[in-house]
Each structure stands twice: as structure tokens, then as C-alpha cells.
């Protein structure tokens, strides 16, 4: 399946979203085609294994369909909204595990599953950083991932988290301080 690389891609997506809000399943199917890779990659990074990433990715899109009437294009693109749904599902997923140690165990134990195709690129430092990011709290983790990994603007993140842009910057600052503390502790 191919990405539509035409100049009007944002416009096409807006049209598809409107149609999907109007109960057009085919339009929603096309939105799925456009975004499934990115949602999967995002979730895979956070859960660290294929089986859970697949399950959660499927659920993201079903949840998105069910909530599509509530999506309003403010400052956030559709993919940012999907990322929020992904984040919430991942949080619930770990909550269901009832054990934060699970989170650490998954992140620590299975380095090779993180990036089987790019194992040489996944250096020790990147692995430490990933473990540290996954230990951050909900909003902090979300802001770090959306800003630095997914490339969203602060305005878009603010819209997704329903916060002011200034607050998002404060959260980012806090997140980086926590990351510094976690990494220092690990080095000791």
C-alpha cells in the first residue's frame, strides 16, 4: 500500500477525516492505510515487542473510529490524535500489568527486539535513554516522545494534551531533569 505523496495530502486527509466523521468507513480505512505504520512504530517503541504492538495498534484504530465524532481539528493533526489514543492504550496496558517492574523488565531484557533491523544502530546509550524515557510519567513521556521522536510542534502537543503551550514547555523541562536523574543513577 502506498503513501499518497501528492501536494494536497493534508487536504486529502482533512477530507477523509470529514467523511469518516460522517460515518464513511471507507474513508476511515484510507486513514488507517495512511497512518498504521507510524502508529505501530510509536507503540512498538513503547512496548518493545511485536505481539503487543500489533494488538494495541489494532485497538487504536477501533477506538479512533468509535471516537471519531469527537475529533476536532484544532491545532493538532489527525496523527497527533491517534498518538494520544495510542498513549492512553499503552498506559492502560501497563496498568493492567499492575507491576511497574514489568515495564522495566520489558525494556531491559529484550534489547534485540527493540530494533531487529537496526541492531547495530541501537547503541548502548540509546538503550539507556529508551529505558529512562519509558520510566517517565504519563504527560512527561508523551511530551518527550511527541516532540523529539514524532516531531510535533508545541502547539500541536498542547492541543492533544489539552494544555497551554507554556505548560507543555514546563513539562518538557521537568521530563529532561528526570531523565538526567535516572541516567545518573544508572551510571552509578
Amino acid at each position, binding site marked *: *500500500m*502506498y503513501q*499518497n505523496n*501528492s501536494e494536497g495530502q493534508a487536504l486529502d486527509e482533512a477530507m477523509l477525516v470529514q467523511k469518516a466523521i460522517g*460515518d464513511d*468507513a*471507507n474513508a*476511515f*480505512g*484510507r486513514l*488507517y*492505510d495512511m497512518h*498504521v*505504520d507510524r502508529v*505501530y*512504530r*510509536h507503540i*512498538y*517503541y513503547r512496548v518493545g515487542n*511485536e*505481539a503487543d*504492538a*500489533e*494488538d494495541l*495498534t*489494532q485497538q487504536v*484504530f*477501533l477506538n479512533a*473510529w468509535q471516537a471519531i465524532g469527537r475529533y476536532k481539528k484544532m491545532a493538532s493533526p489527525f496523527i497527533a490524535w491517534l498518538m494520544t489514543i495510542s498513549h492512553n492504550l499503552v498506559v492502560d496496558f501497563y496498568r493492567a500489568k499492575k507491576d511497574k517492574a514489568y515495564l522495566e523488565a520489558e525494556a531491559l531484557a529484550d534489547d*534485540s527486539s*527493540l*530494533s*531487529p*533491523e*537496526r*541492531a*547495530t*544502530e*541501537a547503541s548502548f*546509550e*540509546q538503550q539507556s*535513554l529508551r529505558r529512562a*524515557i519509558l520510566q517517565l510519567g504519563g504527560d512527561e513521556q508523551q511530551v*518527550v516522545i511527541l516532540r*523529539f*521522536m*514524532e*516531531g510535533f510542534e*508545541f502547539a500541536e502537543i498542547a492541543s492533544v494534551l489539552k494544555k497551554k503551550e507554556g505548560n507543555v*514547555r*514546563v513539562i*518538557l*523541562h521537568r521530563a*529532561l*531533569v528526570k*531523565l*538526567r536523574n535516572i*541516567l545518573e543513577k544508572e551510571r552509578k
Partner: protein
Amino acid sequence: MKKFEDILVQCIEDIKAGRSSIEDCLDRYPSMREQLEPLLRIALEIREPPDVKPSSSFKVKARVWLMDQIHERQPVTKWPWFRYNSQVKSIPYRRRFSMASIILVIVLALSALGGGAAYAAQDSLPGDALYPVKLGTEQMRMMLPGDDVVKAERALSFAERRVGEIEAMAEKERPQYLSLAVEGYDDALNMTLARIERAGDKGLATGNITARVAEATTKHLSVLDTVYDMVPPEAKEAVAHARNLSETGYFHAMAALAKNNTVRAAEMNLAAMEGRLNRVRARVGDVEAVEIALQQFEAMAEFSEEISQIAQAIGLNITKVEELVAEATSIHLEVLADVWERMPEQAKPAIERTMANLQIRHQRRVQALEQRGIKAPTAPDIQPGQLRERLEKRIREQQMEWSVPDDVPQGQGQTCLAYRR
């Protein structure tokens, strides 16, 4: 005075954009140096996650499941007949009808128009007055008795009709209604796949119907290629979407077939790959068409690996499959080398990429077969020259990109294909 977090964010932006360095930022805010530096270094370390992609088969299966969930949860009254009401008169709001009232409307319409109308409707196309009657009779056929395999066959026949309609509208130069037929194709194909899945869950034999879907969607691809070449630019997107739908259906059917009959799945996949190479050969000079056909070819080549993995996962012997694929790959490489000579320069990188990927996979396959004591055909020798140099360079680059430790499964797709639904 600027807040610390604003300074931090600005510095990160400037450094990432290349407007500044860490030292520049620290020099600009010396009183914050101690606080700022570690945070900047961490922020700059955070990179995009590795490019992990879901497997084609997962994407297909998930899409079918999603569409199934969506249609199951929609009111039963969402008949396609109703969607085309805009051709007859516009409906300002969506109304809900019971199944019984829909049937009643169709029966009344047929009574008013005469029995011949139902017959005449069968040749109608989107945009024609009787087209809703045609779709209505299809819906009624779906309600006739039959198990899920029978219903899958019916739905597949509707999908074939939609492709026929797409072709007819292109020939009659009526591209304005193409998207309606494409939507109908999407519906029919999803219905087919959903019924096959249900049939499988109920333990019915699905080998034949999945093979038919795979064959049908391969043919649809070829038809849609021709239609794509025919239609004006404003209609191409709809046809491209239909092609994507065919591929979705194809991969889904093939994944199911691979579990039932791996060798047949491998043979059919290789035949489909040859179809894509024929498209490449037929459209030498059309860079866009060649690139799309090569992408499709590569997706099918990746799928060859997935067929082996599916077979291995359920404990089947994959030697025969690997032998078939190795032999075919050798021929594919020769064909691509020949096509490369005739391609315009801007299309050559796409062919080189495809050939490099094929060669790497072929090498691995041949090694695996030789370890089992089976001699497989080696890749054809490419004559020294520009193609050989470029290929060698691409292979080196690809091998570095795909380089993984020995104990980690290889290949770009995912390797564990556990079908949990």
C-alpha cells in the same frame, strides 16, 4: 526575563536546526550553564525510534478486522443502495430503515418497473438510474441461504463486477462515477475476506476460496493497471486506491492460503510477481508506472519470505518453497537486468534497489538450502559495467542497513506471525 524552559526549548531548536551549537547557547546564558548543559545533551541524544514496520500480513489482517468491526457495529440498514441516492435525489439527512422495509422498497420498485427491469439493471453502471436496483439485488442474494464460504464466493463475484464496472466506465469515458464503483469494490472485497475469516473460525475448508481470491485480485491488479493508463489525471487517484485495495485483498488471501497450502501459495505469489515484471516491461519509459510496479513486486518478494515463515511457524517443511523461489529469483534478476538497460536514467535507481534486495535475499536463501545439502541456482552474473558497480554499492549499503546479530531473526518484515484472531 525569559523563563528557563523557554531558553531551554529555544536552545534545543537552534541546535537541531544548525543555527547554533551547545557552546554558543551556554555562552549566551553563562549563569545557567550548569543547569542547561546536561539537559541540552540529553535532549539532543533523543532520536526518532528505529524504523520498525508492521508486516504486510498484519496490516492487511488488521484492516479486515477493523472493517469487520466497523460494519458489524453500524446499523444493518447501511445498504450501499442508499449511498447512491444522490444520483436519484439528494437526501438531506441519514435515515434508518429496517431490513424489511429496504426489501419492500426493492420489491415495489421491481414491481413498478417490471421484471425486465431487474434483468436490465444487471448491466447498469454507476450513474445509471437502475444501478441502485442492481446493488439491491446483490444484497438480496447475500441474504439467501448458504454458509460463510458460499457467501464469500458471492461477495467475490460482486467484487469482480465492480472491477468490470470500473473498466467499463474507463472505456466509456465516464470517470466521474469511478469512486462509487471503487467504494463498492472495497465493500465487496472486505465482505469476502470477513466471510472467509468467519468460515475459517468455524472450521470450514477455505483453501479453494482463498486461492480464488488471490487469483482474482491478481487479475484485478492487471485490469486496474490498464484502467489507470486510460483515465484522465483527475480519476487516477480513485483507480490507484482500487489497486491498493486489490493488493490488500491479495496479501490477506495469500496469508490464509499459505497456512493451508504453502507450495500453492508460493507458486501463486511467484506468478503474481511475474505479472508485475510484465507490467514493468510493458511500461518501460513510464517512470511512475515502473516505480509502482516495482514496489508491488518487492512487496510480493517480501511476502515470499513471509510464506516461508508462516509455514515454519506451523511446522511445515519449507524446502520445496525455498527451491521454487530461488529458481524464480534467478530469472527475475535476469529480466530486471535486461529492463535496466532500456530504462530512462531516472528509473534506474528503483530497479537497482529492487535487484539489490533480491540478490541479498537470494544469497541467504541459497546458503540456507546449501546447508541442507540442496543445490540452488546462483544469481546470474551481471556483466562488468555500470549496472554491476551500482549494484555492488547498493548491496553493500543494504547489507549494512539490514545487518543484525546472528541470533536475531533477519528480514525487513516481522518474523513472528501469530494469528490471534
